[in-house]
């Protein structure tokens, strides 16, 4: 189960990483202004938020969100309006949080925004490119805006455009580029100053299936080949499964789940059971649960925030017998067994918004 809203600093001291404790005082007091280039792998926490809230006059965009994100590629997933972009703006130090605190690379977003923005890259979700200049000119200019001296800006622009896959076309005005090429330019300007971390806001938006796969591959390489940690947002869960080391799911500004993708997609010994209701047992699901309990088979707590989980019983199969027990219990109660199947955890289970689920289905089908 995933506890939401638990205090961040408690959770840091987990048996898994006992040495974290020694780092805490330094990171907590927020005086680590002198952080130089530390390779992301050595860093323990890339992003940490604690009860982070953002309230606009009419909506609460983020609601007491506590997160602790390590190095690697992290997906931030949620339906439109879930608060993903708001989160990035706060992490860039551009929008003050209403409540709570956040650190990026050990720097406090409230007081050290400029230092953060020197070390991170940002790719916005919307178009941001002037059509009448070439990719080269634009990225060189943006490199200088990040503080790179003129020569370094030119060299790194040439390198970065090559890494994102823009070659001859980089001398032509951006106005004539395809969506895929524009996305690459947007990515290049976020990487050109060799940041320690990049925020990519919906980088696959508007891309066709091939373009999306290319972009996802590129995002993976940003970490594995370039050593730059990534926070990438998407409203499609499916596409981040393969790309990310972690997925954080938010909904309505609340943390729904934060976990490693291997957890999400492992084949498990979990059985999903769905039964019909009868007059004798108007709540068939509940009757089965109680009967199973009496036979010593525990049904997993389904309060995991999964929508519709109320009608599906999840239980751990101890072996072939478990199937028999379930079959017998359901038959004894006179209920119909709608399905009983071994489950593969799929991250889209945590998706709540039907609309988005539909979109995801479209995405998968293409």
């Amino acid at each position, binding site marked *: 189960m995933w506890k939401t809203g638990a205090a961040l600093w408690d959770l840091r001291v987990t048996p898994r990483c006992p040495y974290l404790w020694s780092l805490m005082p330094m990171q907590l007091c927020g005086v680590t202004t002198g952080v130089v280039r530390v390779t992301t*792998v050595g860093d323990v926490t890339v992003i940490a938020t604690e009860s982070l809230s953002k309230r606009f006059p009419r909506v609460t965009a983020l609601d007491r969100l506590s997160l602790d994100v390590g190095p*690697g590629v992290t997906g931030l997933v949620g339906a439109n309006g879930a608060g993903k972009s708001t989160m990035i*703006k706060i992490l860039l130090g551009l929008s003050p949080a209403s409540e709570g605190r956040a650190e990026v690379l050990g720097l406090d977003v409230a007081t050290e925004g400029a230092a953060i923005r020197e070390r991170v890259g940002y790719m*916005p979700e919307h178009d941001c490119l002037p059509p009448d200049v070439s990719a080269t000119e634009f990225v060189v*200019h943006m490199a200088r805006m990040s503080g790179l001296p003129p020569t370094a800006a030119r060299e*790194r622009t040439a390198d970065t455009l090559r890494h994102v896959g823009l070659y001859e076309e980089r001398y032509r005005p951006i106005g004539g580029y395809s969506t895929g090429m524009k996305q690459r330019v947007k990515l290049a300007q976020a990487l050109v100053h060799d940041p320690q971390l990049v925020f990519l806001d919906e980088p696959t938006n508007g891309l066709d299936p091939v373009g999306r796969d290319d972009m996802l591959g590129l995002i993976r*390489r940003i970490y594995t*080949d*370039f*050593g730059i940690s990534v926070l990438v947002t998407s409203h499609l869960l499916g596409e981040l499964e393969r790309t990310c080391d972690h997925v954080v799911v938010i909904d309505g500004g609340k943390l729904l789940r934060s976990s490693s993708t291997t957890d999400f997609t492992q084949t498990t010994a979990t059985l999903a059971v769905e039964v019909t209701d009868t007059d004798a047992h108007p709540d068939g699901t509940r009757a089965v649960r109680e009967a199973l309990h009496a036979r010593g088979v525990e049904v997993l707590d389904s309060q995991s925030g999964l929508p519709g989980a109320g009608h599906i019983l999840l239980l751990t199969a101890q072996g072939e017998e478990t199937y028999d027990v379930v079959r017998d219990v359901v038959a004894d109660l006179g209920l119909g067994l709608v399905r009983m199947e071994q489950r593969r955890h799929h991250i889209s289970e945590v998706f709540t918004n039907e609309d988005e689920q539909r979109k995801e289905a479209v995405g998968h089908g293409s």
Partner: protein
Amino acid sequence: MAVEHPVTVPSGDQTRIHNIGYRTYDGPRLGRSYATRSLYSQSLRGAYGLGRSVKSKVLPMLLFVVMCVPAAIMVAVAVATKAKDLPVDYTRYAIIMQAVISLYVASQAPQSVSRDLRFKTVPLYFSRPIETADYVRAKYAALASAMFILTAAPLIVLYVGALLAKLDFADQTKGFGQGLVSVALLSLLFAGIGLVIASVTPRRGFGIAAVIAVMTISYGAVSTLQAIADAQGSSSAVPWIGLFSPVTLIDGLQSAFLGANSAFPGAVGPSNGEGVVYVLAVLGLIAACYGLLMRRYKKVGL
């Protein structure tokens, strides 16, 4: 809130294998003031179409030439006829050429700020070390500098010509200095007004039209009212009316303090007392433009 570190990265492992193709950057990061200066120089060059398409060089370059040609002709005439004085005062030149200056600011203010707003490039700037104020200052300084180049260049032509024609050195130097102060104020004022208007009209065409309208309509209205007031004998109202257009503001200020002959009806500029009001109005407007721009960009955010 289960938060593990990626399985591929054993915690605490300090080694990292890079793809040979990717080079990290360990050189200097020059920070905020360097970035602001870079934005300034990029915007200043952009105001003359440098670093942009050939098409965008045409108008600013043409206007620059149009500004300088009359000065060159005057100088040629003065030298050839061995005249005792230049045909126009240094302070008067910009007033005569105001249409060209207005056209320049109307075309380049939107170029400078509307593009960034329209194509949503502004958030990219603010995702870097520079702050709102740095952006506004760089853009304002760049356009004001570009306008100063436009308005000071013909004065330099006049001054060099005057020296070649062996006109009185002290006289000419004083006039030239007064002219430079006047066009510096004019550049700040026009650039500020142009940028404020352009920053609220992301569509470039509207921006151009709006700036031209504000500059020419205000001048037309003010000079008409001044003429009516003068004709009806209430010439004391003339200087007060002059407070309501950018061109007449500069005209009044320089006739009060920079030895200029006023272009107001009857050639009567404001008195020294009224001139103080002009100075305050000009400085106040420049400050107001800066403040409005700051407010505008605070809202843009991301």
